[in-house]
């Protein structure tokens, strides 16, 4: 790739940041070039994120209807899947899957709720209820949001 072919597509996923790429100048020597994004790459990211949001929305609707526990909704919202959540809390997958059932989730003791809350980064009080509107992007600690431009 030539330095003047390095894409500068201002990808929204970069949030104004740049990424470093290696490209060759007119003499064929390698240079470091900062790139503001490449459409091909950000399209791929957006496609994956849209799918994630779609799944989260389905889970939110199910949780609102009372078919599943809020746990599954928050898991998807925090971009986890069954395997990674089970690993993060140190449980078998079938146990986590069981906690997706409202009846089983409602019987969880505070110790187990704390483990889930820790793994997902969501306070216990929020973890136990489904929000009124379908928030689909990751739940951030309010103290952290200032860091993101």
């Amino acid at each position, binding site marked *: 790739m030539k330095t003047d072919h390095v894409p500068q597509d201002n990808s929204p996923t970069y949030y104004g940041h740049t990424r470093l790429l*290696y490209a060759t100048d007119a003499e064929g020597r390698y240079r*470091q070039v900062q790139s503001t994004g490449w459409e091909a790459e950000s399209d791929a990211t957006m496609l994956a994120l849209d799918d994630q949001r779609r799944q989260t929305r389905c889970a939110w609707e199910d949780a609102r209807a009372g078919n599943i526990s809020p746990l599954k909704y928050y898991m998807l919202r925090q971009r986890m899947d069954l395997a990674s959540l089970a690993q993060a809390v140190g449980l078998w997958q079938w146990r986590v899957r069981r906690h997706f059932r409202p009846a089983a989730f409602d019987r969880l003791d505070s110790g187990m709720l704390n483990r889930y809350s820790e793994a997902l980064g969501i306070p216990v009080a929020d973890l136990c209820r489904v929000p009124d509107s379908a928030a689909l992007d*990751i739940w951030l600690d309010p103290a952290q949001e200032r860091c993101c431009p």
Partner: protein
Amino acid sequence: MTLPAQSFGHRQSAHCESGVMSALLTHHGCSLSEPMAFGLSASLAFAYLPVIKLAGQPLISYRMPPGSIRRGLSKRIGFRMKTERFRHAAEGTRRLDALLDQGQPVGIQASAFWLPYFPPEMRFHFNAHNLLVVGRENGNYWVSDPVFETMHMCAQKDLEKARFTGGALAPQGLLYYPVVPPLSIDYPKAVREAVIRNMRIMTAAPLPVLGLHGIRYLGRNIMARERRDTPHRLRLFLAHVIRMQEEIGTGGAGFRFLYACFLQEAGELLHNDLLLDASDRMTQTGDLWREFALHASKMSKEREPMDTALLNRLLRACAEQEQSVWRRLKDL
């Protein structure tokens, strides 16, 4: 008093682990560029393992597993690294603080999801992100994360969370720093060894899912997926391949440009035309990978009709071109 954080020369890099190693060694007086760190560790690879699923998508990697740049580099140029893992978060934080108070910049492994300075769109549960912590101040850390342009401030509890999260490749608070930094590097020997080792990884892998065979396998598998999967799932899979190649900080074309830069730097240093020629060929390989990514992206966005045979042909061309690089380097 100047804080170590202010005197530390932060440099942006393409990839996290090679950037951290390059910055650490340069800080200790052994100047080493990022491509050199990457190339000498012999970490260029290709692996496509559909059996292993991460977040529902098969494992695709353009480099050796996390930690191999750190280990490969220290082995190749002969210096001792101290690595420590911790059972308890409090213990890990105490040790980090003690090292920082001695003025030692420390490399750490952390989860990209829990680092507050990451933009939300880039926050994924990838536990093997590497960064440097260079100082601390009122319960905050100064971190030099090589994939960003500048240093960041990170609160102690956020960094602790990122270092001690669970899941696949859990960092377990891993921290590392050189104990005996290298005084000088025997470049002719190190470059030769690294290139030969990397050639074996790419051309003589024992499994058909690794190296050049792995690239061809991915091409065939994309065609098989078109017959087997729904169009939606196929598009998501293509997006996943592109992200592994471009998004996760590879310097472009899945580390191929980074490696070509290493070959060029080594060729100029050792006045070796063979390395320079191999560098040109590797650049062409990278251009082919970018072309593949462009088509795959358009197909996954439905801006171009889905044509898996074309993607297969492009991947085979990548494999062919890369083979010519390694065939050339065999005579080194």
